[in-house]
């Protein structure tokens, strides 16, 4: 190796929602050579850090002209969509939301396609939760409900639970009971201490029976009752239990799961302490929900068309696009992470993409501007899956900073006058 290498310590990885902030990124010659401490997902997240830096599709290559062109494209739309794809800093997300407000657009992101059930359930019921640091230091019973973090959240177990030593768990893993709940093919961790299995069809009844059992009522048949009693007893005896579930649910997961798990974990606090931990995927997804919430009061699917936020998760981006209700789209972030339903529904809509690898996007966008990836090329804030804000730092230069570019776009839109 001829190039000088440098090491950036304590880098936050947004490969999944765990947001591990202990990555040592080894850089040589403007390329990432290694992401120490990172899991396989993290290694893939950092990659080699290379990015295209193109601006394409505009009538002119000058950024000011392109922004003016985008501004007039968006301003001419009757019902524009601003879409928050992953891999953005909170700052960039905020700037995109400001544009949506300015345009009286509809703003949405991946959340409404992947995690809406859990968010809506938590809006209806609230939730009993704990941050990962509490879980790490306090949870003596850890239930993995139909999720094995090893695949999608590889360091969850080693960093948060059940493996680490905690203030109240001096012997780490040995002080904890791990319960794997297998729902059909969705299995919990292989090395669990207790395994409770059910078919996908049984899940709702099982959850209902569990809640009924905690309320002192028996429900369901004998075979379920035995499994329910075992889990109920363990949860009741726990000092501080946590139920871990994957909030990035595939469409096959029944919408009642999130709701039932919230009700279950809340009600357990009558006698002991219990929290629900909802895992989120990478790219600062939780950040998008939270930033949108402080801007508008709603975490997803916000319609500014009437001049003030309206909440329409029942008519989210996918549905609107499918109905042909959007006549232009500004997509910000990594288009590869856009859910298929939305991607397909985008169809013939006029599209502008601003984000990392925009120029390589398979979407048929009219204008594309390459920017950087949050936490690799761009600095700012991100939110871990448990709402803990973490700094993300640029370890490599960005082609252009997304947040600044969006601010400039906002100014370009403003310069063309107030929206109709």
């Amino acid at each position, binding site marked *: 190796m001829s190039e000088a290498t440098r090491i950036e310590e304590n880098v936050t990885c947004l490969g999944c929602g765990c947001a591990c902030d202990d990555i040592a990124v080894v850089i040589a010659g403007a390329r990432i050579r290694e992401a120490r401490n990172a899991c396989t997902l993290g290694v893939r997240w950092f990659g080699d850090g290379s990015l295209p830096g193109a601006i394409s599709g505009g009538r002119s290559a000058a950024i000011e002209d392109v922004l003016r062109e985008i501004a007039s494209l968006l301003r001419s739309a009757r019902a524009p969509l601003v879409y928050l794809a992953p891999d953005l800093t909170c700052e960039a997300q905020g700037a995109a939301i400001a544009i949506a407000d300015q345009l009286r657009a509809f703003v949405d992101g991946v959340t409404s396609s992947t995690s809406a059930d859990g968010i809506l359930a938590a809006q*209806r*019921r609230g939730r009993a939760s704990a941050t990962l640091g509490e879980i790490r230091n306090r949870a003596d019973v850890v239930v993995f409900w139909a999720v094995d973090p090893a695949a999608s959240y590889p360091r969850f177990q080693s960093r948060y639970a059940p493996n680490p030593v905690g203030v109240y768990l001096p012997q780490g893993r040995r002080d904890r009971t791990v319960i794997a709940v297998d729902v059909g093919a969705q299995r919990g961790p292989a090395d669990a201490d207790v395994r409770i299995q059910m078919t996908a069809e049984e899940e709702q009844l099982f*959850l*209902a029976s569990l*809640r009924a059992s905690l309320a002192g009522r028996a429900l369901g048949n004998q075979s379920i009752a035995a499994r329910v009693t075992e889990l109920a007893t363990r949860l009741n005896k726990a000092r501080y239990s946590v139920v871990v579930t994957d909030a990035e649910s595939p469409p096959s997961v029944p919408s009642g799961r999130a*709701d039932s798990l919230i009700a279950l974990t809340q009600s357990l606090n009558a006698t002991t302490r219990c929290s629900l931990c909802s895992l989120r995927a990478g790219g600062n997804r939780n950040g998008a929900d939270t930033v949108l919430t402080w801007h508008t009061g709603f975490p997803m699917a916000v319609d500014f068309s009437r001049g003030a936020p309206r909440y329409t998760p029942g008519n989210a981006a996918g549905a609107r696009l499918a109905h042909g*209700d959007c*006549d232009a789209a500004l997509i910000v972030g990594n288009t590869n992470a856009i859910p298929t339903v939305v991607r397909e529904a985008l169809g013939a809509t006029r599209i502008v993409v601003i984000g990392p690898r925009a120029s390589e996007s398979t979407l048929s966008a009219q204008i594309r501007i390459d920017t950087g990836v949050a936490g690799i090329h761009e600095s700012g804030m991100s939110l871990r899956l448990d709402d803990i804000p973490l700094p993300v730092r640029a370890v490599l230069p960005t082609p252009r900073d997304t947040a600044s570019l969006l601010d400039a776009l906002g100014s370009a839109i403003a310069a063309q006058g107030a929206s109709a």
Partner: protein
Amino acid sequence: MSERITLTLRAALIRPLGAECISADRFADLSEQEIGALELWDGHASVALGDVFAIRGDHSSSVTIEGDLAHLDGVGTAMRGGEIAIAGSVGGGVGARMSGGAIRIAGNAGDDAGIAMAGGLLAIAGSAGDRAGAALPGASKGMTGGEIIVRGGVGRDAGSRMRRGTLFCASVGEGAGTAMIAGNIIVAGDLGDGAGLGNKRGSILALGNVRVPPTYAYACTYRPPHVSLMLLSLRARHELLVNDEHVHGLYQRYSGDLADIGKGEILEWRSM
């Protein structure tokens, strides 16, 4: 001041138009010109009501709307009184958050009819879409009062999280009355799957067949006195086809949802 105000659609609508401004109580204070200046929403563009509808009449809280209105959304939103008659079908969100007055629809209604309704009457001669009488997204309570009378069928999640009030329909899709807190859902036909899950104190009545959810348990077969009262009241006020054999009939009572407080019920008609 006119007896009624009539709005007649000038040209067919080809895409959704937001019409939250059309509310009978509000029209009582407005001249024809003022009504014409109200804002409808085409995307983020506002369109004058008078450009979309021909307006006859003023200062009345009785309103008739004529034309194919299947794309007209939000009619009667937050309406507090007065009366709207819709000659054909209407779009989504009709009567959303209404607290008084009556909206009568000769055709079908879209999704979210009477969502978060608090009072008044929403009568639909045809069918209604999903979430009739249900809750605003993320809200803990669905309709808190009033009546939704649908002579045809309704879609999914009808009356979900209902707190008070009555929803009557000929048939329902999945998930009727999920997480009901109280109130009544009366289905003249069969009850769809997943009905009443999470029900606390609500009553779901089916004159047709019921697939009893696993979290409900059979209690007894009896003549529930409140059912006679409810059905007679509905029959008298809405000229619904409810037979004496239903009014005074024997019903099987199932208690649930037992995963919750278990004080709700599904009543399934059996015989006279």
